[in-house]
């Protein structure tokens, strides 16, 4: 199938992009187009106007501070995989990026696009939730607001953004040098959509211990180590207590789905603990 006809503009600034969105109620923003492209061709999306934001220079930038790295919205998965950004999470971002779909998709697909699309199976949705990253959003007023990924992703393909706003970047707080992460994705074959994602992050210096069960069909489920770091991680030594923990946290699915969600988290935790 071929896309229905649409108009196409390529603004040079965030303000211009927001104005275009404000003026065109059904317009769609396109960056890498790795999800929108197929939807256009299948005519599942038929926007009258596409606003291509990949030529807005500031969206492709990376800013580093002592406490965080801010990744521009149109930075590609491939750039992150190739470590062209800093390493706020000790190489964890590059590792996650390298497992996104196929290299051809990573070459064009962007971190901002993936987050705004908010497919529950997307790697960034789960992994950046676990890292406590924040999304930078700008509207017509030009004032950026910051919202945590956990709050930004409201559900499957449902995000907290107004029609005339665009995501400009992702603010990833730095983990300390002693921090460890684990990531395990279960999918039918290389590059396929995930059926379960487990993420585990443990940063003793920052007092952070967090486990995320993703790709469950809605927003990722976050389990914070409030009840004690060791206890949280040890919960997943045993599949039964792991299952209880995920049940309690609101992960849902039939027996098979629950079994692979538990396995994904369990294996992420095992990786974190070096087992």
């Amino acid at each position, binding site marked *: 199938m071929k*896309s*229905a006809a649409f108009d196409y503009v390529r603004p040079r600034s965030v303000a211009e992009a927001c104005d275009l969105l404000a003026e065109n109620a059904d317009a769609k923003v396109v960056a890498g187009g790795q999800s929108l492209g197929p939807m256009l061709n*299948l005519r599942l999306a038929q926007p009258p106007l596409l606003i291509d934001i990949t030529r807005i220079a500031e969206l492709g930038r990376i800013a580093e501070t002592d406490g965080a790295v801010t990744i521009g919205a149109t930075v590609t998965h491939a750039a992150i995989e190739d470590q062209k950004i800093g390493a706020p999470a000790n190489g964890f971002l590059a590792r996650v990026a390298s497992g996104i779909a196929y290299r051809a998709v990573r070459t064009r697909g962007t971190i901002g696009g993936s987050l705004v699309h908010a497919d529950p199976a997307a790697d960034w949705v789960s992994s950046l939730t676990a890292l406590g990253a924040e999304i930078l959003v700008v509207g017509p007023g030009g004032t950026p607001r910051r919202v945590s990924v956990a709050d930004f992703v409201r559900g499957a393909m449902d995000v907290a953004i107004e029609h005339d706003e665009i995501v400009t970047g992702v603010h990833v707080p730095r983990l300390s040098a002693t921090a460890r992460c684990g990531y395990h994705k*279960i999918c039918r074959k*290389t590059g396929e*959509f995930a059926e379960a994602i487990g993420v585990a992050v443990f940063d003793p210096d920052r007092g952070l211990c967090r486990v995320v069960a993703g790709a469950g069909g809605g927003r990722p489920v976050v389990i914070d180590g409030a009840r004690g770091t060791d206890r949280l991680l040890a919960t997943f030594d045993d599949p039964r207590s792991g299952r209880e923990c995920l049940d309690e946290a609101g992960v849902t699915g039939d*027996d*098979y789905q629950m*079994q*692979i969600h538990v396995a994904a988290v369990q294996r992420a935790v095992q990786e974190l603990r070096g087992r």
Partner: protein
Amino acid sequence: MLRKEDDRYMRGRGRFVADIRLPGMQDVAFVRSPLAHARILSIKIPPTLRDRVMIAADLEGVRPIRADTTLPGFKSSTQSALADDKVRHVGELVAMCIAPTRAEAEDIAAEIEIEFEELPAVVDMLQGRQPGAALLHEPWGDNLFLTSVTDVSNGTPPANAAYEVTRELRTARQVMSPMEGRGVVAEWDSRVEQLVVHTATQQPHIVRSGLAECLGIDEGQVRVIAPDVGGGFGYKGILLPEEVALGFATRKLGVPLRWIEDRRENLVAGADCREHHYLLTAYADANGRLLGLDCEASVDCGAYSAYPFSACLEGGQIGSLLPGLYDFPHYRCRVHSVATNKPPILPYRGVARTGACFAIEVTLDALAREIGIEPVALRMNSLVQPEQMPFDNIAKRHFDSGNYPEALRRAIEAIDLDGVRTRQKTGEPDGRRIGLGFALYTEQAGHGTSVYSAWGIPMVPGHEQCQARFTPDGGLEIRIGAHSHGQGLETTLSQVAHQILGVPHDRIKVLHGDTAISPYSTGTWGSRCMIMSGGAVAKACEALAGRLKHIGAKLLQTDAANVRLEGGAVVGPTSRIEVAEIARTWYRRPQDLPADVDPRGLEVTEGYKAERDTGTFSYAAHACLLAVDPVTGEVELLDYVIVEDGGVLVNPMIVDGQIQGGTAQGIGTALYEEMRYDERGQPLASTLSDYLLPGPTEVPAARILHMETPSPYTRFGQKGIGEGGAIAPPAAITNAINDALAPLGAELLMSPITPRRIVEAIAAAQHTQTPEAAE
């Protein structure tokens, strides 16, 4: 020898249907049925678009596609190019929309409103066999294209059976997925009053006959060109309703028309192969030898009998394929070819053999577990022995040659059966379970007139012909009616010609894929080309050799009996003359030829048929070692060994490529590919994110070992090998998974084996067992 055709393919210089641009060409988009089974009540076309849309009522004089067999009891279906009264599967063509671009044609398609009366759909073969099921073709009274019965039962069950197992097995409906989909560019050439159809087909001459029949015009008014074609596998061995519709419309409208299938159409309207169901009982005696099989099988044939192979190519063959390579005395098999509200079944690489091999080989493993012996021991006890060759099996298949036990022995050694058994006792550190599975098959290939005339389908292969001629500068042109779309025939047939005539490879051109320039052929299917086209090329080149010697002898002023063809020259007692010089003289200096020279010159057409046309039987033993994660159901193939006997190999590299490529498809059948339907007959995959194909990381490089038992019936002892790789993997992989899971009491009997099916089978087994036995 490297493949001649790869230079253009690897450089992106191939020319496929979608590369063709004709002046004024318009694009076609089809309106397809959104329902599986429905009556068409009305079709509303906006008046401003009426001249850009064609529906069934516009196709004046066009006859439906009809592919009957003469098998007794066969019921005939008719498939209209555009549906008239009823639609019988999702994706069936209802209207064609014509515009300068595909996108605009799709815009028009979106404006057409069709009112349907939805009917209950038959979405599964077993459901279709039930009394009271909805009827696809009302006059039939049921949904059975055909029921085929083979009965060689000397008493039921075998009196001396010590062991008996029954298994219910299924293979899922699949979608053939060549890299290039189908595509058609059609134009009416008013100069020669001829319809020219460029189409991605394996069988240009068959498409020509089918088009002429459906359009009601002379075959001379149809020219079919198959340019470069990006893989066939059977998907392109069919007369398309799209070809008929475009063929009619281009003449009517006076503009060239193009339709290029996209992947969504391929998935929705082309889910067309492999779907079988078996209820199979196997018996063994006290010594662990196979005694007999009782089988009731069904084939989910879809809505129509596809041209030319018919709806019953699979169902009609299962009875004779199921016995495999085994020698046993008791056999009964009943096969129902059932019409369902799905796309028509087509012959996919392996054709019926993949399902039959799956059924027998998986059941044999179950029988061996029941007996308590190694599955390979049961096979060794039961295989046809080399000294029995040639062998007529219980279903009257005539195995030409081979040593089946030796192939299995080599596979056992290469995969290290004993080592695996030891490793299984110690267990894996990561908690996974190791399993080993074997499967064997024979691949009948190049079967000809006697076999196909018995089935009586619209196409019966006779003598395969080759036209061969020298050009004035000494080059050799080989014209064949079959088609090469990945098989490397431009190379292998050149090898045959070179062997006989000594003409250098770079001076040999194999021409094919155009009814205007090639002799008639049923085309490329059934792993037949190296046998049939190879035989024809040999015959034609031998005839040319005779002509060369005759003319050469005249020029050397000696008798033809005194010369020989050697090293690209005709050599006489005292002198020699190059082939190129003979050609130059014949064409450009006829004044140098004597008056009594043979006037037929350096151009011949010769035909070939194998000495015995029941086909060659290449065979192989596949052995698969894999690991199953019982928690996630994930499967990793650790090792894959194939011991193959393809007779004399013309080009071993191409043979290995065929085996590896087929194996990739077999892995798809075993683990990934499945088109599911909901209860209304809606296909549940319309993109490749829902229909999974194995990729490079899922397909290990198979270790291929060769045996070479020449076929006694073919020109060089070659056997057809094009499909074998796709036959055994589902059985071998399933057996390996069941071997891995046997200690847990779980058994998988359906392809594809998905992680969910594994996890659920283990859970079900645990549920029925004591906690201790389930570990």
